[in-house]
């Protein structure tokens, strides 16, 4: 007779496998299907991310077509098509109709999706809410025709069920299309498919994304570059980031015959010498087969691995956007906003937290039609995926809020919190493992190392903004002075001469006293013959000036430039050139010109102009030469610079007087007749 069932056996009898439908119901929120509006966004997002990942892996420039149409009162038909490599017939059911199935879960590199839940969850949601199958069309290049499958998920077994199947001709070399009918609602605006695709287009300027909205509106985000981003390499797991279970999984699955080989070849950052040290510390033999390391020995091994200095994880698994493409992406998508200023994007070097590399990139845009009296706009991205929810809980937002933006020219109450102003910040965190606040992957969790990098990157972008704003202030001041000398002064001279009945005096001495600057005016003009960058240097000071002009531009641009007159020195590798200018009398002027071949991608922001021989206060349109140039200046320039510095220090240079027209007049405007 069998013994009576133990407690454990009784409990086991009650346990059963929960169905994926139950799993889904319990996790709707973290899976992103908690309401009809969000369900549609999640569906679009998962399908688009899959398409982009597939294209990237195959080195194809992505074309994504998202079509959304209404089907009845609360139902929406969604179709997302990509031009990726296509999926083999036998893989289609598992990829789309089986939860937790994916090729990337165990790979150690940056990717959009990671767990293999996303798209199957969308299929499941569609099955559950409308009882309609997912229709998948996919064609690989090697085959003549496309497979079309109607799929359901068997919610009891978590297995795909193919409802019907066909082979059709498809006028594309390769690609995949998924069509779903689901209970959903389409809206535009915040947290909408539109916003998501726009964000995606910004950080994926190599993709062409088309959205057809239910009312027939067709929105196209054109690609801004023909270059695919470099494919993030698959890297080996680094011991610093390994959990015990994962170590066990790798020990069991490896084909390496010995522990020392496992350590040095299946893991990252373990040198033979470090491996030896680790094995000694773990009390294991070098020749032990990895599969036999079990239980407590695994724990000893992990502790030993963490106690030995190892080579830091490699950043090869990362796929940053890169400064150039951040700029292109922002420019491409924000064109209609016409910002005044695109700050040079900041791309921080990769750093490591735990066993995982990460890096932070920041782009900043200022001015134009961006609203000036509202909090700045923040575009958050994690591994090139826009984060649309939980802004307030995100480490990115916190890093922004904890900075004092008033120092950089934005409004901010009491120096913390979201700043206001006509600015937009793009922040991208890339990592092989991003710490999200929850499985919904909507916000990045606080982490001291990530926070440090975020702050440094934001400060870098903010410094560019400050420079831009101070240059703008000086430009405004200059245009005010030009208005005085060009329009007002001649009339004042004419009026007073007329009243006193005397000839109009020579105004140059007064003009140079009012301006009291050397003005460097540059522009960039593009024509069929080529791109011209004329520079005009005018001495609006009351003294003769001896000056040296410097330009710094991307080295590859300088390589194709013709300089007129020939520079007195260049440093091609650094993209630098300089001229000793002819002596300029008061109101004297001279010219320099840079010419480039037609269609050169050059803009005013690419050129930094510096002048030596005069102090900053008397310089407009250029900055004083930075100290780190280490250029040997001609004697005349050195002397001129010293004289100018002396002049600036001289007493009476900034004679303080109360400005009558700026003084606060009567206590109230309502006073007096």
């Amino acid at each position, binding site marked *: 007779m069998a013994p009576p069932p133990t407690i454990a056996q009784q409990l086991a009898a009650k346990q059963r496998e929960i169905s994926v439908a139950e799993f889904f119901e319990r996790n709707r929120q973290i899976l992103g299907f908690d309401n009809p509006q969000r369900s549609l966004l999640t569906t679009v997002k998962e399908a688009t991310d899959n398409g982009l990942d597939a294209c990237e892996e195959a080195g194809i420039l992505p074309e994504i077509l998202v079509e959304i149409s209404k089907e009845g009162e609360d139902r929406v038909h969604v179709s997302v098509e990509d031009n990726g490599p296509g999926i083999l017939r036998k893989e289609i059911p598992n990829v789309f109709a089986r939860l937790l199935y994916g090729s990337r879960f165990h790979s150690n590199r940056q990717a959009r999706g990671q767990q293999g839940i996303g798209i199957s969850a969308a299929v499941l949601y569609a099955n559950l809410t409308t009882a309609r199958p997912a229709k998948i069309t996919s064609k690989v290049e090697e085959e003549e025709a496309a497979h079309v499958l109607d799929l359901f998920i068997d919610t009891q077994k978590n297995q795909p069920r193919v409802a019907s199947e066909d082979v059709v001709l498809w006028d594309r070399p390769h690609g995949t299309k998924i069509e779903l009918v689901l209970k959903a609602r389409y809206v535009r605006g915040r947290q909408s498919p539109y916003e998501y695709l726009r964000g995606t287009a910004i950080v994926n300027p190599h993709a062409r994304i088309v959205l057809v909205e239910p009312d027939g509106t067709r929105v196209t985000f054109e690609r801004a570059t023909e270059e695919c981003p470099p494919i993030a390499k698959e890297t080996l797991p680094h011991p610093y980031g390994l959990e015990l279970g994962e170590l066990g999984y790798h020990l069991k699955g490896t084909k390496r015959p010995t522990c020392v080989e496992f350590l040095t070849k299946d893991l990252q950052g373990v040198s033979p010498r470090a491996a030896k040290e680790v094995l000694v510390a773990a009390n294991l033999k070098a020749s032990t087969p990895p599969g036999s390391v079990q239980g407590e020995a695994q724990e000893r091994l992990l502790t030993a691995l963490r106690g030995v200095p190892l080579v830091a994880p490699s950043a090869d698994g990362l796929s940053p956007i890169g400064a150039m493409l951040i700029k292109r992406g922002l420019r491409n998508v924000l064109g209609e906003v016409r910002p005044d200023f695109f700050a040079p994007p900041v791309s921080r070097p990769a750093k490591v937290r735990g066993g995982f590399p990460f890096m932070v990139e920041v782009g900043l845009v200022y001015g134009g039609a961006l609203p000036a009296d509202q909090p700045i706009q923040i575009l958050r991205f994690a591994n090139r995926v826009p984060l649309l929810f939980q802004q307030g809980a995100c480490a990115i937002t916190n890093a922004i809020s904890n900075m004092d933006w008033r120092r950089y020219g934005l409004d901010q109450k009491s120096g913390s919190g979201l700043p206001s102003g006509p600015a937009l910040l793009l922040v991208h965190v890339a990592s092989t493992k991003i710490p999200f606040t929850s499985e919904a992957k909507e916000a990045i969790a606080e982490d001291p190392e990530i926070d440090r990098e975020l702050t440094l990157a934001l400060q870098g972008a903010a410094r560019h903004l400050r420079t831009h704003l101070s240059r703008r202030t000086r430009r405004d001041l200059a245009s005010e002075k030009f208005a005085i000398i060009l329009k007002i002064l001649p009339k004042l001279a004419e009026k007073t001469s007329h009243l006193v009945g005397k000839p109009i005096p020579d105004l140059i001495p007064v003009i140079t006293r009012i301006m009291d600057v050397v003005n460097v005016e540059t522009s960039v003009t593009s024509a069929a013959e080529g791109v011209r960058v004329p520079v005009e240097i005018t001495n609006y000071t009351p003294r003769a000036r001896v000056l040296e002009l410097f330009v710094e531009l991307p080295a590859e641009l300088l390589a194709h430039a013709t300089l007129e007159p020939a520079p007195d020195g260049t440093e091609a590798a650094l993209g630098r050139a300089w001229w000793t200018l002819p002596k300029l009398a008061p109101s004297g002027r001279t010219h320099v010109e840079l010419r480039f071949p037609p269609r050169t991608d050059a803009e005013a922001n690419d050129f930094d102009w510096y002048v030596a021989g005069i102090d900053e206060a008397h310089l407009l349109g250029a900055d004083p030469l930075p100290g780190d140039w280490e250029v040997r200046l001609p004697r005349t320039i050195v002397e001129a610079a010293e004289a100018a510095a002396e002049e600036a220090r001289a007493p009476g240079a900034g004679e303080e007087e109360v*400005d009558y027209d700026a003084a606060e007049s009567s206590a109230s405007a309502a006073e007096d007749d």
Partner: protein
Amino acid sequence: MPRSRARAPPKTTDEDEPRVRADALQPTLALAEAIYDQLDAGEIPRMRLPLRTKQNLSFQARDGVWKLGRQLGTRSARKLDGALMLLRTFYLVDFINEMARDKKTSTLRELYYISEAWEEAKFHSEDESNLLIEDLEVLCTRLREDFRLHPEENGASVIGDLTIRERNRKGIVKTINCRDDVGDGGYSLPFNVEKEKIEFVSTKAKFVIAIECGGMVDRLAENGFDEEHEAILLHLKGQPARSTRRFLRRVTEELKLPVVVFTDGDPWSFRIYASVAYGAIKTAHLSSYLATPSAEFLGVTASDIENYNLPSDHLSEQDIRALQAELTDPRFGTPDWRAEIELMLKNGKKAEQQSLAKYGLNYVTEHYLPEKLTEMGIL
């Protein structure tokens, strides 16, 4: 309740008092000469002017008024605003000289429109042109009338037993009693109230009551307050025009009549009183000519609002800022005024003079004014 500075009306001295003079053009040309010489010498053109700010008010014990102090500001072509004002100054000087040649005069508003032809120097508001004219008054120690510029007829109206002799536009002299010879609107002051235009003949009145709002003037007239109490009613029409202030000054000086000011109980009304009694900031260069230092503030005071339990409004943010500004205004620097302003800030309430109608139409003439005037020693 606060009492204003009670002082004997001072005599104005001749050298202080700008009078309409024929030689107004010469100083304007001297200004042009100065700027021309600076330009010719290669200097940045500039002018120095006394600052017309509350910080630059200084009390003249001799006259009992607040006048411009010694702080100077510079209007320089180094700055766009300064350069524009300098250019405007000479468009204006040119215009004044032209008018003198053509024997024309212009209203302030007309001048504003004349400047349409001055291109970048044109005025953007009438405030701007009025300020520049005042600058020119200060620089040349002349009155705007000397420059052939005058305001539109916006003077006060007067009701009461006062007989004057006015020389009208056609040069005919009319004798007018401001109670018996006028309609319900009263006698309307012209912009020029100097002796050559208006002479006082006689009056039986014992005092002048200057009132902020027209409705209150009508109430007093309808209730026969002027006859019963032998008062002259004067409608200030909000911030009083120069001619109104000059008229009050002459009434106190020549007829030896006390003046009381009766306004709403709010920070703006305090300023109306200050410009009548102490001199206005913008025209501080003319205080000894325009201000009536013996004028007393009757109400409505902050304590009246409490004592008479008047219907009131909460102070707006603007009101509070105005009161706080008054605390740093030297004209309100007396303990009485500080107490009054602080009380209003503390209570957070303001009231209109017509709120006295809460107790009936006769309350103001039968109770409030007799009580206040008795307290002030006028009745």
